[in-house]
């Protein structure tokens, strides 16, 4: 059993009436990439904010390196990339990176930061004149420039094109292979699959599933059937191979192991069934199937 570098124990966090995290227990093991996977609003960013000490739990406890998060000693061993909409626009890439490097006791050499973030040639460019992807990479550079043992990346590759995304993946992977711990949030199953040693699936502030990418994929495989049907919800749930169900008025969404046997059965029972659409399971649908149990209980 590996040591843990960060953990949440029974953490609940509310925003007004909205419960962002619901008695969440989470253990981030030392070393490797831990991906927090979930749709928008699942509590990914809140989890990161709590582990960084930007937020305090309403109940429960957050610890990083065995201490409450946010003290300066642990901050020296942490880098983070947050969802930031702007950075002082009149400073250059070099100025920003040198400033952040200066905060850390043993920063990476500047040239290495630029190379890892894929920013070569943009040293003297002002932040405000960078493209969206270049801005994103500058924020990544600020996260890694201190050579931290623990790295938090909140949706690091959102909005990046495929090639840049893959390049960032390989940098993240290398950091983890060098013994660092990376916690990243994403809503791309593909990203978690490509990078993570361990995936935690968050849904509605709870950990709906946790395991290796292969284990998670095995659980979320399958198909989605959408159609309009007069069939009763209880009847649909009772069909063999149905994992979860969601209904908007007459529209029904079914998460199933295999589409054909379920459809055959449905068509046989409901002659008026229309608007059939079958798709592969996306992440959103994965949550439908993973969280079907909790939803029924609620």
């Amino acid at each position: 059993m590996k040591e843990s570098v960060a953990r949440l124990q029974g953490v609940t966090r509310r925003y007004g009436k909205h419960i962002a995290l619901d008695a969440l227990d989470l253990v981030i093991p030392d070393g490797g990439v831990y991906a927090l996977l979930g749709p928008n609003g699942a509590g990914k960013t809140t989890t990161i904010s709590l582990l960084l000490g930007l937020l305090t739990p309403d109940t429960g406890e957050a610890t990083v390196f065995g201490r409450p998060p946010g003290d300066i000693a642990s901050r020296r061993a942490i880098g983070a990339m947050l969802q930031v909409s702007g950075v002082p626009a009149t400073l250059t890439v070099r100025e920003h990176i040198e400033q952040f490097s200066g905060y850390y006791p043993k920063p990476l050499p500047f040239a290495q930061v630029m190379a890892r973030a894929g920013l070569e040639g943009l040293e003297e460019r002002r932040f405000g004149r960078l493209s969206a992807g270049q801005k994103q990479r500058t924020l990544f550079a600020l996260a890694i420039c201190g050579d931290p043992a623990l790295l938090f990346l909140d949706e690091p590759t959102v909005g990046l094109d495929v090639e840049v995304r893959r390049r960032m993946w390989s940098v993240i992977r290398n950091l983890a292979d060098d013994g660092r711990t990376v916690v990243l949030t994403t809503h791309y199953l593909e990203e978690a699959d490509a990078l993570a040693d361990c995936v935690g699936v968050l849904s509605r502030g709870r950990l709906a599933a946790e395991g290796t990418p292969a284990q998670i994929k095995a659980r979320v495989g399958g198909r989605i059937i959408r159609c309009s049907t007069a069939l009763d919800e209880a009847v649909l749930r009772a069909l063999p191979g149905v994992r979860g169900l969601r209904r908007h008025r007459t529209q029904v969404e079914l998460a199933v192991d295999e589409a054909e046997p379920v459809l055959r059965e449905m068509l046989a029972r409901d002659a008026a069934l229309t608007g059939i659409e079958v798709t592969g399971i996306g992440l959103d649908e994965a949550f439908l199937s993973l969280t079907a149990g909790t939803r029924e209980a609620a």
Partner: protein
Amino acid sequence: MFAILGRETRLQVIGVWRMPAFAVPTLMFPAMFYIFFALLFTRSPGMHMPTWLLATYGVFGVMGPALFGFGIGVAVEKGEGWLRLKRIAPVSPLVPLCARTLMAMLFALIVFVILASLGAAFGDVRMPRADWIALAVTLTAGAIPFCAMGLAAGLWLSPQAAPAVMNLVYLPLAFLSGLWIPLVVFPAWLQQLAVILPPYHLAAIALDVVGSKPAESLVGHVLVLAGFTLAFLGVAAAGWRRMRES
């Protein structure tokens, strides 16, 4: 520690220097007004206007960088999420705070040097060297209460509201404190109102330096400014706590 503060301050200054919307008005407005009202219109009933206005436009020059640098700068960085990234970086929040204050003080000093050069060259402003230095020190240190005021505003206001509010505060505050036109020509109730405005007190100290005796004691003005500073810092601290919790 000092190396970090030094770099932070340098980048803070460079950052706003490259921002024409900040640098041009904060540096040029006081100079422009001083040229119009002190050097071109020199009606001086009993006092030497270029000297008198050097002190009060110096105070006006102090207000701009402090109120805009903090009020708008902090509000924008808060809104963008940049402040959150700074909070988790391994650096005390006092470092960016001090850097921004030093930036405001440097700009106040630059404004003073511009005004002083104009006054000495074209307005026949003459003072002993000690008084020049005392005025420069007064105005530079005088940036602190306005930094505190701007910080409080920046932490409480949204980035959309901050520029409008700071502009609405900046000019009336200067006018009502008697920085442009001496308070003696104001109606009595407006003169009394000035006592609750921080620039009035800084102007009283600056005017004392250039030889215009204030009505109240100098120590009183310093204490009032210190009180304002603490009060604004209290409001800022409450804003910081509110921001942390949301």
